[in-house]
């Protein structure tokens, strides 16, 4: 076993530190790393808040999942079934989630205007419509930024994205960008294969070049590079990387989540939240069902979703993590109530649903209502920024927070969205 592959287990990390501390002069990143270890010797886990976003890329048809319209011409073939939450019915192809609905709530009155994939994806992730002159931070960057202080001993990135790339940190800067991993939890290129003393000497040399270039004042990306270097060094030598290793879970647990990419992603999300990661996004794509939607949903998408999501919700509840962990299920938009000539549904943003639960959210309630054909929201409509404000509130993040964009303009957190009151007791 090489020296550096031993670095990832606990014992040899201390071994690494004794070497590193012995090195004549340490590179800045390595020093920061040493300090954080010393400062957090006492491994006391404080209660921390987290959020998990289940991102349904492509735009899932929510009237076939959370807001069924049996009998309507637009309703499609699926039947509603009752759930563990009084008065809430969902799709018959979600039987496992039906047993968990007392932990979740539905907002059936989402009404947005962005029905293009990339625009909708950006809007739902940030609460802002795309603007060529400013990049806004996504859920993950905002929540990681606001909650990172609660987990000072966290050595792995505070914003992890499983499968998809999520939306970036915008003006909060590259160091809040998502750490993207595949659903097997493999992180490429972790092993340098040299001894720690030599690594710290290399880092010292590297720091000298970085500092010189930064000192020449050429723009922010040179500083960003150095910040990300420092985070990388921290992560490379951390035993917290274990929390990505979803394959180390017992087989029956893996089976419960379903042996799918999304299932493993949800299981990893649980492990990461246990480790203290403030924000995890898990991607499930394949909802862009312009053709043959019902077979795709009943045979494929819904069983995969149902199994993994139900296992995640029940696990978090059983482990006492749900009260501190918000769950958000959404896509960039939904699909047309009208069924098209190919047996599919097209893009639709005017009336649709999202599911939320955990953290400070009231459980087992339905907010809002759509018309009998699903084409209109008949109660007060809610926007991406309203949803984002509500999620932040559920995590006790102050909605008075204002960021300063790089151009000096103040930006209210969640685009000053209004909290959806019915989601709170």
């Amino acid at each position, binding site marked *: 076993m090489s020296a550096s592959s031993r670095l990832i287990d606990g014992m040899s990390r201390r071994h690494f530190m004794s070497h590193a501390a012995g090195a004549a002069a340490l590179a800045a990143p390595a020093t920061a790393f040493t300090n954080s270890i010393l400062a957090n010797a006492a491994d006391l886990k404080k209660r921390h808040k987290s959020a998990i976003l289940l991102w349904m890329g*492509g735009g899932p048809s929510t009237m076939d999942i959370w807001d069924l319209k049996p009998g309507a011409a637009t309703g499609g073939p699926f039947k509603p079934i009752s759930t563990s939450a009084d008065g809430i019915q969902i799709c018959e192809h979600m039987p496992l989630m039906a047993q968990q609905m007392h932990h979740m709530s539905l907002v059936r009155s989402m009404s947005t*205007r962005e*029905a*293009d*994939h990339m625009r909708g*994806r950006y809007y739902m992730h940030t609460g802002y419509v795309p603007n*060529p*002159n400013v990049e806004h931070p996504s859920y993950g960057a905002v929540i990681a930024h606001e909650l990172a202080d609660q987990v000072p001993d966290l050595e792995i*990135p505070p914003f992890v994205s499983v499968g*998809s*790339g999520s939306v*970036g940190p915008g*003006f909060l800067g*590259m160091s809040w*960008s*998502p*750490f*993207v991993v595949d659903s097997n939890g493999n*992180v*490429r*290129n*972790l092993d*340098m*294969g040299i001894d720690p003393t*030599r690594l710290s*000497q*290399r*880092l010292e*040399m*590297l720091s*000298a*070049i*970085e500092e*010189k*270039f930064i000192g*020449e*004042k*050429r*723009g922010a*990306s*040179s500083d*960003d*590079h*150095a910040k*990300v*270097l420092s*985070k*990388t060094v921290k*992560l*490379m030598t951390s035993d917290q990387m274990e929390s990505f290793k979803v394959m180390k879970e017992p087989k029956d647990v893996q089976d419960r989540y379903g042996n799918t990419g999304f299932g493993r992603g949800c299981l990893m999300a649980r492990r990461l939240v246990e480790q203290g990661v403030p924000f995890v996004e898990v*991607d499930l*794509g394949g909802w*862009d069902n*312009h053709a043959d939607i019902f077979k795709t949903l009943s045979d494929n998408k819904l069983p995969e979703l149902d199994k993994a999501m139900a296992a995640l919700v029940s696990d978090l509840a059983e482990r006492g993590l749900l009260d501190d962990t918000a769950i958000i299920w959404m896509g960039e938009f939904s699909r047309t109530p*009208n069924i*098209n000539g190919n047996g599919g549904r097209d*893009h639709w943003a005017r009336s649709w649903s999202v599911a939320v639960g955990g953290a400070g959210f009231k459980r087992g309630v339905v907010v809002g209502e759509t018309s009998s054909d699903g084409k209109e929201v008949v109660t007060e409509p809610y926007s991406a920024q309203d949803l984002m404000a509500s999620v932040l509130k559920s995590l006790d993040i102050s909605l008075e927070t204002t960021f300063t*964009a*790089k*151009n000096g303009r103040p930006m209210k957190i969640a685009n000053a969205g209004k909290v959806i009151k019915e989601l709170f007791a």
Partner: protein
Amino acid sequence: MARHVYSERCRSKSAFFGAYLLIAGFLTAVAPIAAAAREKDEHFGLPEVKFINEQVAAGWSDAKLKPSEPASDQEWCRRVHLDIIGRVPTVRELDDYVADSSPVKRADLVGRLLGDDYVDEYARNWADVWTTVLVGRSLENDNVNRSGMRQWLRRSFSKNVPYDRFVSELVTASGVNKAGEKGFNGATNFLSGKLEDNGIQATAKTAQVFLGLQVQCTQCHNHPFNKGKQNQFWEFNAFFRQVRALRKFEGTRDVQAIELVDEDWAGEGGNASQAELYYELRNGQMKVAYPVFIDGTTVDSTGYLPAKMDDGTEYGVNRRQALAQLIVDSPLMPRAAVNRIWSHFFGYGFTRPIDDLGEHNAPSHPELLDGLGERFRGQSFDTKELIRWITLSHAYSLSSRIGKGNAADDPAVGEKPKFSHFYLRQMRPEELYQSLLTATEADQAEEKGEKAARKKDEWLSQFIIAFGTDEGDEATTFNGSIPQVLMMFNGDLVKTATGTGKGGFLDRVAASGMTNAQRIDSLYAAALARKPTRKEIKLANQMMVARKGDAISALQDIWWAVLNSNEFIINH
């Protein structure tokens, strides 16, 4: 082709001035002529460069900006190699340029990089750039043959095919998309993966890439914030209804190829002489559409391809050919091209995003954009000339160091770019890959052409994220985040580049008979195009001591640090 070999022309001109002086023999004439020559030198005798310089400078004075100092020779040499041929200069190329004392050495270098000596590297670089534009980086799409696409692009760029013909060949391509198959035409790969669902993607991408129009929203409804109307989308879409993508079989063997063919189209109404399509309004009402270009120009609505009747009368229309002609004649095409190519060299175009030139998205330099577009057309769409004008401009020669007088010019914070200093940007992954090969002199040993390109594709695939939509949207984690740093720290590519095996780069540097100081100098030159500072030399020497005289291991550590630095990966 008029000004293809610029440097020669320029030299003959100075020779002409010299001769004039000798013959005329008037010493008093020296001063005004020297001034005129200097004036010419600033623009290298090119009116287009003069135009760019004046337009950009007008923007500076409007915004009260003082441009940065010029970049050093080394910085400029590195930059222009990266941007034109997609890699850092070799130590030799750098030394030659720095040693050159000609007042027009910048024009000479650009001329060389655009000339025969570098034609393969030029073509490889621009084929990489355009493969990404036309078919993305993902390897997943079965209906696209990346190899075929790239081979066609490489051939186009090595022949410097005029841009209008380039566009036309892509839009009208028919034939088989896979090299080696009968009837191969790699250009078909632009459309071969975009014809499903009645060619919605073909419609959106053609408008976006070649006209700078974002029409994808208007598929379903009128555009929320510009004049785009739903009928325009479907009228544009009607141009793609004669083309079919057929999966090729050889006997029963699926040869993994697509053939694009144009066929008579009967229309959705079943009347080929009035071949129409239908689309649905938001309220469920059905509307009819025939081929109409974005500017309102209509094309005969027949679905028949051109043919002759028995009596010799000609009839029919090839809709894609009609569309290609309309695109090429449109003033939008050169604007879209200029904006794309300008942004390649400056990191920012005149609009954000560069492929949205709609009326709602005002450009930062409207006159420059239009004027360059007209000049590009006037130069018969010679892409190399456009590149020459841009790279010889004053703005492109500036340092990336920001001064007191231009700190406000920062497009990264959302300001419109004023190009008063060079904007930092990370190398594209393809540039990094190629630069590592160059810096370690591994490219001579590498396979050439398509085999090498496929290896690069595989390496790139680790950074590609697909979003799972029908439109094939994708992103890259090669964006300065942790996975990229891990790849640079520990990935195979860098492991190979910093390897100490016999005959490898470090081995050759170590065995070269140079002093340690010279060895360190050459590592810095190869990667950073500069000399090490005193502090860096001190650290390097400490490294030599720490490795107890094992020179090659110490060089390995230094080389690793240099390659991992911001200064290496950021084009500055």
